[in-house]
């Protein structure tokens, strides 16, 4: 048969011959081997390995990172009720699946990059630095998964030719071992470029990984390791940037930042490819006609979060947008005279008592001309029921402004923000140290490290110093000490993507949800957390879709069977 064919070939296509006719010339593309060999090619996959952070943290609301905690309550659409309230949280939850999938898809890209690291024709030093960054990123994703799911599937090889159908779930201990081993191996080769993964980043996350393992596996020695790494990450740094300035849109990548998902107006492919962090926290501010910030209003800062702040705490004003001028972003516009332009909304708060008509008359004095026709004011109320009664109404509570992106104010899109998403900063490292100290029952040291953050310049409105809402040093138990720590971290890190994991690892998730979360209290905390198998839903469920496909036997987390 072959001979006949060749004979035909020669006869019919004498010009070029069969073989050549059937060759492919991929003029617009390039093969992995050809591409990753070059510096440009390898740089490309390094860049996308970082860009996976945008997909994971900037596209979807951080439901699994913040949903169902003590300081955020359900939004008016009651979206993601499952994650906010637990009763209806099951293994088929789409947001859990999205997060899970995003993490592993990021890991695949990194695994491919690691696979081709050998052939990259760059200096040995550069190759090793890149490899260390990649290994850290891979471990970081695995750690993020551990925080949510406990024991996980470790994926440390690329999927290139041929399917991988059976990927078993390892034990929790092995999962931690992998993360810590990889991060420690990467550490020596990391550089100091603060926009990339650097030594300080790795030290911080090692502290966090050890700390998490210490709680989860009850390993006291890990608390000490956590302190060591935290100390290395702090590296003698003193908290010195005032809070408002820390979150100024023009002060990104300041000295406090350890690891941030990078965004920039010049580095997005489309106006809607920014992130959504600025619009997540607080009520809807109306449509494009008003030119305010486009809120998705995924998470409403709970009454308790407001209540945690004390009168003297300047961070309250720096965290929430308490005055909305003519257009929301006018606040950042130096050309606009804030004593002249209209005021659309005002969120007054007086301490220790309810806001009164007298307060409002006092406030308005001298501002009469600024009061817009559609002006509304929404004073804070000390009665939780009264305060949250209006939560479904547009603008009814102040929105978080820390993540505002005024440079994209003209783009009315929920994903317009080009602000970096800060995943880790040094203040958190102090808190990690404090938490490890609590783990070691050294409450005074814990309080001392929290105090170092409270001593941030400008934190106290009266120029003095802030004190802890609830003392850690004088706590009578580890649990009480943690309560004190968690109230402080709620205020310091409002809106940052830390809360759920923090509550979970300290074993406080159910307790604090029961104490502070209105939606969960309403259901009854035991009923909310109890799964059909009678166990509490303390981890997120392994997505059913992942279990269905994996040929290995994947045990489900308690509460979801």
């Amino acid at each position, binding site marked *: 048969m072959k001979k006949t064919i060749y004979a035909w*070939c020669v*006869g*019919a*296509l004498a010009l070029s011959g069969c073989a050549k*006719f*059937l060759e*492919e010339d*991929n003029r617009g*593309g*390039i*093969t992995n*081997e050809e*591409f990753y060999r070059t510096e440009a090619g390898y740089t490309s*996959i390094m*860049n*996308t390995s*970082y*860009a996976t952070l945008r997909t994971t943290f900037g596209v979807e609301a951080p439901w699994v990172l913040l949903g169902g905690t003590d300081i955020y309550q359900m939004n008016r659409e009651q979206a993601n009720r499952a994650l906010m309230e637990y009763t*209806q949280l*099951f*293994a*088929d939850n789409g947001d859990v699946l999205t997060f899970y999938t995003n993490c592993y*898809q*990021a890991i*695949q890209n990194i695994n*491919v*990059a690691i696979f081709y690291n050998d052939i990259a024709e760059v200096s040995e030093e550069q190759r090793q630095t890149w490899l260390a960054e990649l290994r850290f990123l891979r471990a970081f994703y695995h750690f993020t998964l551990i925080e949510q799911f406990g024991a996980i*599937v470790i994926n440390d090889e690329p*999927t*290139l*030719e041929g*399917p*991988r*159908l059976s*990927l078993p779930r390892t034990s929790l201990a092995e999962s931690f071992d992998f993360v810590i081993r990889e991060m420690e191996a990467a550490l020596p080769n990391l550089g100091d*470029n603060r*926009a*990339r993964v650097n030594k300080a980043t790795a030290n911080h996350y090692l502290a966090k990984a050890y700390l998490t393992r210490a709680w989860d596996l009850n390993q006291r020695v890990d608390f000490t390791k956590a302190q060591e790494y935290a100390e290395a990450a702090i590296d003698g740094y003193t908290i010195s940037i005032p809070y408002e300035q820390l979150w100024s849109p023009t002060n990104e*990548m300041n000295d406090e930042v350890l690891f941030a998902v990078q*965004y*920039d107006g*010049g*580095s997005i*492919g*489309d*106006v809607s*490819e920014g992130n959504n962090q600025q619009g997540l926290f607080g009520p809807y501010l*109306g*449509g*494009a*006609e008003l030119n305010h910030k486009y809120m998705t209003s995924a998470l409403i800062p709970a009454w308790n979060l407001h209540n945690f702040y004390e009168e003297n705490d300047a961070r309250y004003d720096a965290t929430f947008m308490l005055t909305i001028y003519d257009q929301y972003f006018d606040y950042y516009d130096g050309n606009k005279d804030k004593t002249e332009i209209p005021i659309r909304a005002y969120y007054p708060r007086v301490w220790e008592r309810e806001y009164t008509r007298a307060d409002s008359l006092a406030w308005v004095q001298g501002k009469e001309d600024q009061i817009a026709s*559609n002006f509304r004011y929404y004073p804070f109320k000390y009665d939780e029921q009264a305060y949250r009664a209006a939560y*479904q109404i*547009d603008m009814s509570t102040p929105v978080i402004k820390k993540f505002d992106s005024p440079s994209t104010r*003209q*783009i009315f899109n929920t994903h317009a923000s080009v602000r970096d998403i800060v995943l880790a900063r040094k203040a958190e490292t102090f808190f990690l140290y404090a938490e490890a100290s609590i783990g070691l029952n050294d409450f005074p040291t814990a309080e001392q490290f929290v105090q170092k953050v409270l001593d941030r310049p400008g934190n106290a409105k009266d120029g003095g110093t802030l004190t802890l809402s609830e003392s850690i040093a004088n706590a009578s138990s580890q649990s009480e000490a943690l309560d004190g720590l968690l109230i402080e971290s709620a205020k310091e890190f409002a809106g940052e993507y830390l809360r759920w994991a923090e509550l979970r690892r300290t074993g406080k998730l159910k307790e604090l949800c029961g104490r502070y979360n209105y939606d969960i209290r309403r259901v009854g905390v035991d009923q909310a957390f109890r799964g*059909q198998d009678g166990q509490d839903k303390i981890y997120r469920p392994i997505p*059913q879709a*992942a279990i*269905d496909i994996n040929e290995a036997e994947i045990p489900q987390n308690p509460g979801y069977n």
Partner: protein
Amino acid sequence: MRKFIILFFALLSGVYTFGQTREITGIVKDEDGIPLAGASVRLVESTIGASTDADGAFTLPIPQEGEHALVVDLMGYKSKTVPIGTASALDVVLIVDEALELDEVVAVGYGTVRKADLTGAVGSVGGKELQERGTTSAMEALQGTVPGVDISNTSTRPGRTFNIQIRGQNSMQGGSPLYIVDGIATGNIDFLNPADIEQIDVLKDASSTAIYGSRGSNGVVIVKTKNAGRPGETRTTVTYDGYYGVRQLARIPNFMNGREWVDFRTSAFYTYANNRYALETPNAILQNSPLLESRLYNEQYEDWLGLGTRTGQQQNHYLGIAGASDKLTYNLGVGYQQEVGNFLKEDLNRYTLKLSVEHKTSDYFSTGASINFVHGINNSGSEHGYRDILRMPSILYAHDDNGNLIAQPGIAEAIQGDGNFTSSPNPLNEINSGTEEIRQYDILSNIFAELRPMENLSIRSTFMPRFNRTRTGTYYGVVPGQRNQDVAFQNNVEGLEWTWDNVVNYNTFFGNDHKLDVSLIQSAYKTRVEGIQAGANNLPYPSWWYNLFSGAFSPNQSGTSYAETSLLSFAARANYDFKGRYLLTGTVRYDGSSKLRNKWAAFPSMAAAWRISEEGFMRDASFVNDLKLRTSFGFSGNNNGIDAFGSQLTPQTNTVIWYDFNGDPVRGFMSGPPINPVITWEKTRELNVGVDFSLFNHRVRGNVEFYDKLSDGLLMQRILTVESGVPWMMDNIGSVSNRGVEVGLHTTNISHHDWEWSTSFMFSHNKNAIRSLYGKKEDVVGEARFIGQPIEVIYDYRVTGLWRMDQLEEAALLGQQPGQAMAADTDGNGQITPADRVILGSPYPDWIGSVTSNLRYKNLDLSVNLYTRQGVFVADSFLEEFGPQNTQRGRPKINYDYYIPPGLPRYDWNDWGTHADGSPQAVWGDSGAGNENAKYPHPQNVGPYYGNNGRYTDASFVKIRNIVMGYTLPNEIVSKWKMSSMRIYANILNPFVFTKYEGWDPEYATTALSDGNGPSNVTYQLGVNVRF
């Protein structure tokens, strides 16, 4: 032998009866002068008769005295009576009976065959029949004409596309048949003007499709456009076919009216907590808007659909000129089609130009060429128009008192309420803001030379380039509340493909009874597609897509692409015919593809047919005019699912990914999908058994086919473990069987001089079943794929009812709440888990059928065509947006039976209060007993075991597709106008649909709304066919 016996008896009887006879001889020929063998020649009112021999000759004894006449009959030709007079020799010319079409020639790929000699399963539709449907699309005309071919409309837009499936879905990749237009492979036939089509043949079984090898297993649709005739007919004909029609909206679903909808909205605000439902924010329902209350009081609602739609129109004009001299023939055609859609800004204009010539230089050589140029311009208006126009509740008005469009009809200011009802922009602004225009240029051309060194040997070489350029331009302007910057985009795809076929054909007779026809085929096929696209926003002035770089360049919408593929093929086919009774066909094709690492694959097939009616023992069964049993077995392939360069491991170079390091922008490509080095074509083996019959003097004709297909090595997106970090990879890892039966029946019920009534029936049933997945006979639940079940199934919880308030505690045990859906515990383990999901149905029809009735009385004709698809169960797009699947409480819904808890606040529409200014005030009443036995759960609390049940529905239907009434003008009149014929007609398309489906149209139930899932319509046409 049979002829001899007849002749013998005839002679005998003739001799016996009349004693004195004379002999008459003659030859029976067709219009082209070709002798016809096997024609029956009979003396009127006698038993004397004979058949013509191979040269068309006959000899008959006739009585010496009296006036006599002969009746000449041959299957496929009109019966003819010839007075004998005194002649002793007669030549009789028979005219093809078009109604019978039994002798029609059928395209089988790289050649044609008489339908009577066909061994495979091929369905054939003539151009006249297609044109009579009055559609602007060839595919729509083809719908319901060929058994086993399931065509469904995918949208209501002008220029829409169609889904087609021949004998069931073979592949997980879906995949469409191979379209061959005048020898050229095209991706679809949507660009053709139906008036330019001479014939469509659909190859269905593997013995027919094997000649197309790796591209054949989804079936092959061969389209022959009107081309040059056979040299020698020295005449010129001019034809004009045209119609004009209007399209009107029809069968609008039953949407909630204003009050019904406010009730629904109220229900959707009921929230469940502390073991009860409550309306926590009653003010949110109407935002304290007296304006809305007045509208509800007066029941004065906005007709949003009416504002976004209009009466559409259709027209088609086609002028053809065909001429011939004894050596040269040509065909010229020019056509214009227009369709104006019902939705604002939708339209289609298409221009067709064709030229075809053929020159028979000598007996040894012919050459010819044709070129077909089509230019189409298709506007689809606003992408989301169909959706957005009905996202506005009818209690909101589009215009203010001055008649100006309200930018955001639902904001606080517009409704004079406390807060926003919705901040959605006015959809009419969006619709008016721009369009998407697709401009398409298609050039199909071919040039051939044929050498006939011997009478029975031909060598033909055909080169067929095809060019397509498709430009898509979109522009949408600034719309208050929607878009602060205008956006423009342009995409250009240019493809050049060529096919070069070389065919050697040899046919020979040996002995008296053996006929052999052999074709050797060599074919090379190459495609090359280049694309470029760019997007921009914030243009300084509305410049559509023509001045993109005056605005801000949008990198994500911009890019270029390149792909090429090649296919090299060798094929052979032999047809052997013994005595016209036993027919054998053998085919093999060997395909080599650039896309695979293992490039070559072979596709063999065999077919045999037995014309039982030609056998001696059938002589007495005079009611049988023709009976043929066919069987075939073979293999064909499917090359869908593997893209160019699909066997190369590459980064995803088509998409630029951005990042930055502290403000320094960087770019890169994500790693590419995994590849499978051993990937190859899907192969389908198929067994086909068919019977063709023609009975009772051809009054009952038809065929029945049974087939059994097994498609193996199916390309599937093998879903990979989520943890492996890639969603899927292609692999040859499945098998699917399709088994079915097809019946086509044409009956002539009345055939009288004045009256003629005939009916056609078409029925097909196909059973699709997955045999294996991922190489194993195991269900893959995660993908809803199950062994023994169709590829597409709807797999979900079976809802058995709703939890009522009085079952509160029982529900709580299962973690459920009143108003939520109750699912069947199908595995009976006392818990509802994902394992309780079951197969609820499949979108594949159980059967499809059509009936066409053609009635003629004198010059009047009436034809009715009915089409049905039964047993269709779908996840519906309409219900997803406008039905129970959509939980949005700010958008309109159709009337559906939803859960209402008892004893909750609800407006009392019978009791109105008065505001201070005297305007009516809506007053709260009570939901009374509620609606706890509803079909659908609480709109915002469906529960965890409901899945997507809110969008599942039966989409079976019976449609009267068209009713045509025509009048053919009498010859006396038209001849005065120098016409040879003229017919005028009226046609109604889609006048009636019988269905339980609640949305726009069951036929395109699964189409996304943005793709044109919009209102159904009825078209009224007036048309004319003229022939000079």
